[in-house]
């Protein structure tokens, strides 16, 4: 019997946190239809790609969609006046 998808989500989240390729605690994992969807944001393109590698290792034959973004350091700083 294949693993229930709910357990797969938990196991993948644990793998993403613990795997030394990523140590990603803030990637959101959910099952959409027959696929595993990854969302969130990381600091580098290398980490985004490594997340997909870890997810594929963990998910076996289940298709993984990696929608994780990379946060850049471009643009101006925001500014707020606090009276």
């Amino acid at each position, binding site marked *: 019997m294949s693993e229930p998808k709910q357990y797969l989500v938990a196991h993948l989240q644990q793998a993403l946190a613990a795997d030394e390729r990523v140590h990603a605690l803030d990637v959101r994992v959910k099952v959409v239809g027959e696929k595993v969807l990854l969302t969130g*944001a990381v600091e580098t393109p290398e980490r985004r790609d490594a997340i997909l590698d870890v997810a594929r290792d963990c998910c076996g034959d289940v298709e993984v969609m990696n929608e994780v973004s990379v946060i850049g350091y471009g643009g101006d700083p925001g500014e707020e006046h606090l009276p």
Partner: protein
Amino acid sequence: MIRVAAVGDVHVGRDSRGRLAPAFETVDDHADLLLLAGDLTQVGTEDEAAILADELRGVSVPIVAVLGNHDLHSDQTERVVSAIEAAGVQVLEGEAATFKFDGSTVGIAGAKGFGGGFAGACASDFGEPEMKEFIRHTLERADRVEEALDDVGDADVRIALLHYAPVKDTLLGEKLEIYPFLGSYLLGEAVDRAGADLVVHGHAHHGTEKGLTPGGIRVRNVAHPVIGRPYNVYCLGPEEECAVGERVPAGSVEPAVE
């Protein structure tokens, strides 16, 4: 008037070299002080801390930091702190740092904080030793926040710099189930008791920038994924002196991604 730049959760790793420095080189043009709200590194190694130190070398204004949970992961805390301090950064844990700018004094009370949850849905000092240890750790960390604010004394501007969240407001967007791992009301209560003009924190990547403690103190979640910019600048003082001008209002747009 004091202009404070702040960002948290930069999560510097071996793949971060050269990514932050160009943005940080502009801090001097925008702010008098730079605050780093924890999770400075990805897994808390000395090597990562040294890379962060290199990225910060173009900053001339004072830099004050607290550590986050990621910075403690590899049990290299002392070496991580030493490597960061080599770049002139003051790393605080239950301590205060004060500065004087144009006759005004600014006091920063820094402490990592911890989780535990928020009033009505929080951990209690009861039951298994592990559970009691958890919440007692939070109580101890909250005491450090209050003691650090006491050490700030009568500075004109008093800022609490944390990693964990002191209020729920700035967690909006996070899953409710993980709130107890993101912060504690005990931190907010400590800040309200001691008094401050602003609380800055990180840790909650899916959260919201702006909040308020029950005592009415402004809270800003400056986690990099939340602000979506290199850093935000908070200007404390008369509006005419702050002259926001054409700069980008903080918290006004969705995070920028590449």
